[in-house]
């Protein structure tokens, strides 16, 4: 936003509440690392020193859903696990976003077999599908940036008493 530059010029700043809210929301996305299998290891690498998710304001990985607004589903979701994932998603406060990390969560991936859910969009609203098996850490960071862009376009009225899944945020703009 270039806050400092503006403030030194006039000493004040005009903006919309909407824009301010969206800006603060997008700059501190707290992910809920739903690490289920192999992709979770790459998600750990993103938190590690080489890729360092802290550069994007999201290093606060909380393992309790109640403090998070972005769920990264990393790993194969089986039918048995799907109920747990759904329950955790329901516990997250609105507004919330979901990244389906990896081929497994997006479409079942290489597991065309009886226990694996063929894509978590069958029971969760997904915002970003992330390709790769596993996606490289840079790719996950890219997804995070895209989610931030998406959050940056939200307005306060988007969240009025409606679950986010019913909103089409991008088209509202």
């Amino acid at each position, binding site marked *: 936003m270039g806050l400092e530059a503006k403030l030194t010029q006039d000493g004040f700043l005009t903006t919309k509440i909407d824009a301010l809210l969206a800006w603060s929301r997008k700059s501190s996305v707290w992910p809920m690392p739903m690490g289920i299998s192999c992709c979770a290891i790459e998600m750990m690498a993103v938190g590690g020193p080489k890729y360092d998710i802290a550069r994007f304001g999201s290093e606060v990985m909380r393992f309790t859903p109640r403090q998070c607004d972005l769920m990264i589903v990393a790993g194969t979701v089986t039918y048995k696990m799907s109920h747990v994932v759904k329950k955790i998603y329901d516990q997250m406060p609105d507004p919330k976003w979901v990244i389906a990390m990896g081929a497994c969560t997006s479409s079942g991936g290489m597991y065309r077999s009886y226990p694996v859910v063929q894509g978590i969009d069958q029971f*969760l609203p997904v915002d970003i599908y992330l390709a790769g098996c596993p996606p490289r850490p840079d790719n996950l960071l890219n997804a995070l940036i895209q989610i931030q862009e998406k959050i940056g376009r939200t307005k306060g009225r988007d969240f009025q008493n409606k679950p986010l899944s019913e909103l089409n945020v991008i088209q509202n703009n």
Partner: protein
Amino acid sequence: MKEIILNQLNASLPNIQVETSEFKDELTIQVQKKDIVEVCKVLKNDSELKFIHCIDVTAIDWARRKDRFTVVYHLFSLKNKFQLVVKADVDESDCNIDTVSSVWRSANWHEREVYDMYGITFNFHPDLRRMYMPEEFEYHPLRKDFPVLGIPGSLPLPKK
């Protein structure tokens, strides 16, 4: 090693039938289903054999054979550095076999897995529940008549 195993088995249990076969240096002995616990006890406790490490218990589904299933036990003797395979046939109409979890405690979960995947019941098992699939699931996935993609609707999904 083969002679020692057969000698010790015959000495302790004179009236059992044992067939042996070999493939790629692996010795397999086939015993009758009713003798399995006795045989395993000898294999584990005999001071010359000492098969104290039960690597694995699994089953094979032969689909169209008369004795449809074979239960396979992989054993290892640290003393002799020798690996042995023990097998027992189980028929579908009488789909059960005695548990060996009293001999090796590690067999407990392996047998639960076999029960889950093949539907073979292990008599006197301390805790025979499904290992992987949900308790409500009705089928046994590794049987040959179960499709890879599963049976639609047999596993519920949460509501959207």
